[in-house]
């Protein structure tokens, strides 16, 4: 019988290898478009089909994007990084080798910091390198016993980001991945959609008895297609390995696939003998020659990192949670920054954005980054200012926002056209109060008889008569005086 939970007895050691598709217009080594979802083999040329005699020429923007990602992760850059060939045979690998970077990757020694389950986490990035994607195989629609190969994706630029084995469990792996995604979103080099395959993750998992230092046998887990499935797959794998170790078995070094439906990992049916990729320098390409000035120029163009942004928002008085909601979505954070520049008060502006505007946009199925959102951040800031300066009430502001979302109008224009300015003028309110008292003698009598709720009814009557524009504080004050 083993004592304690799996977590108490074993430490889980995880390293993640993440592949990210870069959002370039053309492929890594040829000019074919990278658009998703075209009919099979219509975005291909002799280069990405690996036809005889075709040669690769690297895409300048792909290198810039990879460099942005590397700098955002605090990596050291190898300005003379090189290309290598990784040799293996597979139907979706047209040349029989993948052009990648092996001995001299673009970047090494980075760090990713993020909020973990119990405090700040810091995971070292071992390396970040550039490579080309493979095509796709499918059985769908193919005659029995055959597979179809579509090479539209072959040659799309990728970066591979390899972490050190610093990740300490399934949940930590998910948090690492989500925070990596956020960093990459800020660099605007990829749309990083795990479900669409533009972010893909393989995990190396091993267990070791708590208190020991040696690494256990590595198991590679593949085919995890969402953040949730990464956590689930690793949870399954940790318990599988713990049970095996408890039973006195040895863990075999192997590659396993995650089956999302059954919720299990299973060993790959690979016919490949021990992998021997025979890496060697790509003779068709010279080394990169990135100048220091170029690297610094790219570094200077990077947007504020998510961690720094979170801290700045908190300094502005936003609660950590609210700041986190904004930071998690670069489009939202960017929008918020423009609201701040437009004069919005941080706390109130944030709530107007995340509660009121997002609520309305969600109902329309659009987000702030899209053209469907007709409210500009400067307009939302102006709306918040109208409330802050007492021109309209918070309640009226919601009506104004409805109209802004529908028609893209300026809040000042809506308020002026519909005459929604708050009435703080005593004379106008006194008139409305007196007429309410005159028309509702029963309520007045009830109030005088001690029924306090009758006052609320009278306030409501005054607000109704002023179409909601009367300053509610003033109404209460004057009503109390007139009844007094």
């Amino acid at each position, binding site marked *: 019988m083993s004592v304690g939970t799996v977590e108490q007895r074993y430490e889980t050691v995880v390293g993640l290898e993440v592949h990210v598709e870069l959002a370039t217009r053309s492929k890594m080594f040829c000019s074919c478009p990278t658009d998703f979802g075209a009919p099979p083999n*219509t975005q291909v040329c002799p280069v990405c089909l690996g036809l005889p005699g075709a040669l690769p020429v690297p895409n300048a923007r792909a290198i810039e994007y990879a460099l942005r990602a590397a700098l955002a992760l605090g990596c050291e850059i190898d300005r003379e990084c090189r290309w290598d060939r990784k040799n293996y045979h597979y139907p979706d690998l047209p040349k029989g080798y993948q052009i990648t970077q092996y001995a001299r990757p673009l970047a090494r020694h980075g760090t990713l910091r993020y909020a973990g389950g119990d405090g700040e986490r810091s995971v070292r990035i071992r390396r970040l390198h550039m490579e080309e994607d493979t095509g796709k195989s499918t059985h769908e629609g193919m005659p029995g016993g055959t597979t179809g190969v579509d090479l539209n994706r072959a040659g799309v630029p990728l970066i591979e980001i390899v972490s050190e084995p610093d990740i300490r469990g399934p949940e930590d792996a998910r948090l690492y991945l989500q925070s990596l995604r956020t960093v990459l979103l800020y660099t605007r080099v990829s749309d990083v959609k795990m479900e669409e395959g533009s972010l893909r993750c393989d995990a190396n998992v091993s267990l070791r008895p708590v208190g020991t230092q040696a690494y256990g046998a590595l198991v590679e887990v593949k085919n995890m297609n969402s953040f949730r499935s990464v956590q689930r797959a690793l949870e399954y794998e940790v318990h599988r390995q713990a049970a095996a170790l408890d039973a006195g078995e040895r863990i075999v070094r192997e590659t396993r696939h995650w089956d999302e439906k059954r919720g299990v990992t299973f060993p790959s049916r690979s016919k490949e*003998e021990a992998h021997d990729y025979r890496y060697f320098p790509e003779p068709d390409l010279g080394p990169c020659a990135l100048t220091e000035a170029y690297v610094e120029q790219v570094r200077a163009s990077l947007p504020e990192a998510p961690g720094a942004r979170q801290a700045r928002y908190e300094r502005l008085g936003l609660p950590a949670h609210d700041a986190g909601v904004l930071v998690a979505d670069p489009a939202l954070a960017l929008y918020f920054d423009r609201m701040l520049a437009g004069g919005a008060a941080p706390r109130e502006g944030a709530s107007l954005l995340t509660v009121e505007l997002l609520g309305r946009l969600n109902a329309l199925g659009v987000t702030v980054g899209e053209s469907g959102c007709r409210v500009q951040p400067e307009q939302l800031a102006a709306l918040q200012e109208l409330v802050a300066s007492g021109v309209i009430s918070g309640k009226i502001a919601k009506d104004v926002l409805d109209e802004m979302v529908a028609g893209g109008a300026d809040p000042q224009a809506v308020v002026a056209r519909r005459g929604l300015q708050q009435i703080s003028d005593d004379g106008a309110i006194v008139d409305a109060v007196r007429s309410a008292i005159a028309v509702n003698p029963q309520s007045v009598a009830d109030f005088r008889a001690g029924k306090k709720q009758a006052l609320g009814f009278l306030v409501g009557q005054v607000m109704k008569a002023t179409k909601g524009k009367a300053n509610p504080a003033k109404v209460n004050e004057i009503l109390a005086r007139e009844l007094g």
Partner: protein
Amino acid sequence: MGATIGEEQVRHVAALARLALPEADVSRYARELDRILEHVARLQAIDTADIPLTSNALVVAGVLRPDEARPGLSGEDAVRNAPAQHAGMYQVPRVLDGA
């Protein structure tokens, strides 16, 4: 100098290179490769301590192309030379999931 490559190794290399090698040819390949490798082993006599590798003598560094998308081959041209195709796909004997 003794044999550097044996029959087992010939089979392994052929498997890596995805080359069907008739069993009858294995020993001949082992002999031939062995002779070549024995000749090549003369390189070991040269002192190359601290000498860098030259993988391409006159290659140009830093050559790039702009990120401009251009149409490539038509779907028809893409599969025209394929030994087997179906619905615009290259058709191959079944590839198993997770293989």
